């Protein structure tokens, strides 16, 4: 894919060469530019000319060319993925990009400080070079790689915080509980505006169109220096080792460049049991239906069957009437169930949201209709008394008619008595 890398100067090619080479080795085409280059552009004739954008330039106040925070938002809305690495010397443009995507960077000049987890070798005395343990990472293998094997990651830079109403934010790397954000040179006069594990070192966002954005307060995280450094944490429980920055950077760029965690629906099919195509005029109530969805996952550039076992199907009419876990047989997920005895317009809904994966959403609208007037049972047991009564009535009428027509009244004593009484009255 085409990647635009912006550094403060073109020197980023040298300072971050290991990182950039590792990306290039994965088959991407990198264009490295200075952030103030007057020829910068993301769109040409309304089309994206880059698929991904890496900003490794902390101090950008104003982008060169046609680039601007709103242009970058447009880029994201059009499906582009963005990695923003800032630093203590943060420029307004980056802070604005963060705000456009539901994050906030700390003010320029501040750094994340942690007196208990800094690196003794690399730190210059401000306690701003942090050693990040794996417990501070988000537990999502797709985003941060295999965190169990990951060595501690070095971080030096500015704090980040997710917006209060940002419910799509992913806290990829949190600061430790003892960290806070402040200007290391200034005298502490006020409380830090962000502190503790609320401070993010790396924050991510998957927008609703599945574009991915990663913010980090440290461009050094990706630098050659940190890649090759050995950690030497002040915290005695953390053993010194080769820094995990390279592995972490690979994992996070794989995620942000949509090399991992991408799902797609290949086919969806639903039909009556024993048939193969959906009915033309909708289903009838209480029919048995089979729903099948084929989901594929992008792995190493190839679409392979998705193996997840926790995909659920909902059969919804405002509320779900049926909710079933789909049985996965090599990417073909299916379930058979009986339609509810409720008519209406229903949706077969698969809404699969997992951290790290793209949002999988599929809706098939069907109508569930009542039975035709000819589809009901013709003779029902509970109606037997009525059948009996109607036939007995008919028989009775015939009998009565015969008796009435052929019966001759013979005068009876009792009748006479009645007649005489009647006369008296």
């Amino acid at each position: 894919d085409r990647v635009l890398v912006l550094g403060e100067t073109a020197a980023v090619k040298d300072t971050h060469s290991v990182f950039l080479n590792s990306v290039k080795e994965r088959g991407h085409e990198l264009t490295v530019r200075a952030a103030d280059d007057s020829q910068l552009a993301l769109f040409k004739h309304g089309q994206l000319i880059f698929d991904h954008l890496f900003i490794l330039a902390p101090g950008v106040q104003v982008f060169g060319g046609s680039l601007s925070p709103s242009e970058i938002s447009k880029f994201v809305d059009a499906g582009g993925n963005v990695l923003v690495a800032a630093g203590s010397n943060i420029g307004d443009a980056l802070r604005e990009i963060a705000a456009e995507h539901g994050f906030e960077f700390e003010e320029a000049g501040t750094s994340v400080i942690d007196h208990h987890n800094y690196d003794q070798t690399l730190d210059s005395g401000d306690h701003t070079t942090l050693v990040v343990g794996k417990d501070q990472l988000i537990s999502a293998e797709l985003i941060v790689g295999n965190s169990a094997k990951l060595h501690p990651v070095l971080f030096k830079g500015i704090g980040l915080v997710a917006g209060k109403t940002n419910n799509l934010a992913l806290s990829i790397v949190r600061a430790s509980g003892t960290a806070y954000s402040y200007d290391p040179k200034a005298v502490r006069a006020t409380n830090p505006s962000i502190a503790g594990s609320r401070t993010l070192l790396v924050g991510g966002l998957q927008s609703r169109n599945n574009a991915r954005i990663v913010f980090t307060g440290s461009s050094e995280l990706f630098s050659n220096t940190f890649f090759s450094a050995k950690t030497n944490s002040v915290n005695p429980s953390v053993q010194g080792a080769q820094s995990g920055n390279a592995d972490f950077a690979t994992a996070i760029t794989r995620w942000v460049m949509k090399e991992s965690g991408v799902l797609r629906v290949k086919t969806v099919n639903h039909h009556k049991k024993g048939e193969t195509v959906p009915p033309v005029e909708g289903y009838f109530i209480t029919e048995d239906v089979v729903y099948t969805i084929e989901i594929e996952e992008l792995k190493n550039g190839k679409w392979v069957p998705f193996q997840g076992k926790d995909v659920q199907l909902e059969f919804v009419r405002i509320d779900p009437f049926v909710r079933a876990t789909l049985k996965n047989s090599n990417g073909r997920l299916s379930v058979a169930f009986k339609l509810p005895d409720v008519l209406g317009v229903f949706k077969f809904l698969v809404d699969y949201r997992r951290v790290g994966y793209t949002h999988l959403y599929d809706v098939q609208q069907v109508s569930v209709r009542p039975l035709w007037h000819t589809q009901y049972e013709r003779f029902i047991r509970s109606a037997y008394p009525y059948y009996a009564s109607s036939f007995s009535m008919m028989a009775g009428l015939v009998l009565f008619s015969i008796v009435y027509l052929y019966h001759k009244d013979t005068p009876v004593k009792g009748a006479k008595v009645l007649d005489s009484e009647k006369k008296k009255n």
Partner: protein
Amino acid sequence: MTSTTAARTASSRVGATTLLTIVVLALAWFVGFASRLFAIVRFESIIHEFDPWFNYRATHHMVQHGFYKFLNWFDERAWYPLGRIVGGTVYPGLMVTSGLIHWILDSLNFHVHIREVCVFLAPTFSGLTAIATYLLTKELWSPGAGLFAACFIAISPGYTSRSVAGSYDNEGIAIFALQFTYYLWVKSLKTGSIMWASLCALSYFYMVSAWGGYVFIINLIPLHALALIIMGRYSSRLFVSYTSFYCLATILSMQVPFVGFQPVRTSEHMPAFGVFGLLQIVALMHYARNRITRQQFMTLFVGGLTILGALSVVVYFALVWGGYVAPFSGRFYSLWDTGYAKIHIPIIASVSEHQPTTWVSFFFDLHITAAVFPVGLWYCIKKVNDERVFIILYAVSAVYFAGVMVRLMLTLTPAVCVLAGIGFSYTFEKYLKDEETKERSSSQSGTTKDEKLYDKAAKNVKSRNANDGDESGVSSNVRTIISIILVIFLLMFVVHATYVTSNAYSHPSVVLQSSTNNGDRIIMDDFREAYHWLRENTADDARVMSWWDYGYQIAGMANRTTLVDNNTWNNSHIALVGKAMSSNESAAYEIMTELDVDYILVIFGGVIGYSGDDINKFLWMVRIAQGEHPKDIREENYFTSTGEYSTGAGASETMLNCLMYKMSYYRFGETRVGYNQAGGFDRTRGYVIGKKDITLEYIEEAYTTENWLVRIYKRKKLPNRPTVKSEEATIPIKGKKATQGKNKKGVIRPAPTASKA
């Protein structure tokens, strides 16, 4: 020799009378038909009202797909996502009637579009109603009164209001069915023949298939039977006609899918069953009285009746309690207690035609007949017989119901026409007859002889002769004057009826008209403009949310899915829409997402001063929503501090933030009606609106018609990415926004000397 000439003159006289009758009825038909065409002549031959759009759509569906497809039609475009079983929730009589006419015309090679059949159905049936009324009145009184009644009903505004061309509604054919059923009932009661009773049941079946008002018949006929029993007028004729009518009618009415088991399972139908049972007992008593001793009879009578009565009451309540028989419905209670609906079922009270009637509208709809019908009633009471008891009961109950609900004026009109016909006919008979020569009076006796053939009430004729003597004292001048005055009244009735029909009842709801200062007519076609826009510019399966009044229209004209419509069968669904309309934007958005709403349609009359718009209906939305969601919606929150309903300066915060207010008045603040008027002046309500700078966050304006009458909004999708607004930022955002460089060089913040990269 003389006898043959007499017979010949008599037969020619009969022939002349028949001819005259036919001519008068044909004219009544023609006049009734013609006077209902105002709307069509002025505008177009389309369905003009809101509600009938569904009937038209259903008819169209039936003609296209056949009756069985129609009967089993599941309409997934209505009541989304619930859907509607049309075949089981509609009175199919109207559709079947017009479908049948269409089929007949088609097979005669008159190829007419079904729309024309629908448009002209109601005027055509008004002629049939006139004939049915003639027949009924003839049975009750005399052919002359029948002709009067037929002429009255043909043009009476109370009936015209529901049967103008283009108003394709159930009532259009139901009044005919009503009158014809009553005629057949009276006929069967008079003859005591099973045939007439069966015909009556068939006619009743037609009525059941056509209109929910059939409940009126199935309660009025038993009431009549009951009254006759109580008055001691029980006869075997009554027994035969009622029992055969009831049995057949009940079974037939159960064939209509919408009615189903109601005749045996709801309280509304129980009186008919009770009278049926009572009639058996009374018949048994009559049979037994001649066969057993008086004492035995009394024991049987008193003991049996008490036990049976007590038993039936107990059984009835047991069945209601057990759920086998539904208790009386809310609509029924609202007929007795006019405040009931307002408290318990706001959806019924929200309809303007369910409001109590003002006395003005009695005059407006009935004119002189309203004044004369008590006279007819009085004559009927004075000369009561079995069948006149019926018209008395009919008139009295109809007057009551018409007083409760404007809409039921419709059932009163036929009764009034019949009685007014009797009143006029009787008076004219009295006052014109004596001035006639002897020959005329002999012809009168001839007609009374004819009458005898089918009017067996011989005492009727006698009493009339007796009355003649009473009124001979009035001088001929007075008679002339009175006659002339009455004729003038009749002329005025015709003028009034035409005027009302033309000016009040022929205004289509689909197009609005107003006039300029010069008197030119301006047609405002906003509704069709909006619906056409929806039809052309939205996805075929787009779902449109609107208040229920417009549901049928959207479905019929725009062919889009609606959430609620004029068939208000599901109160909670309507309440959900009402809640969305009366909530603030974000709460409404949640409801709309749940319901998959794509577009929202509101009617706004503030620009042209159209008073039937959504803001004026809004309080009902709030009330209905409050009925289902009392926690979220409170009616008092929508009032000003002084307790008024206003969208003006003093409007409450809730009001100003609700979706309905925002949608109605969005961008309205920019408009200016006149030079000297402030922006945002609402012409319907006559004040400047309370809040002019309205911003929409979750919806966007999609279309507004020429006169702003219909405004369509689109529900936005959720924003692609969350943003941090400056007011809710943790870290204050300072400084201006970084502007976009126009292919200039950018600016990099200089690295502070202290910190190193």
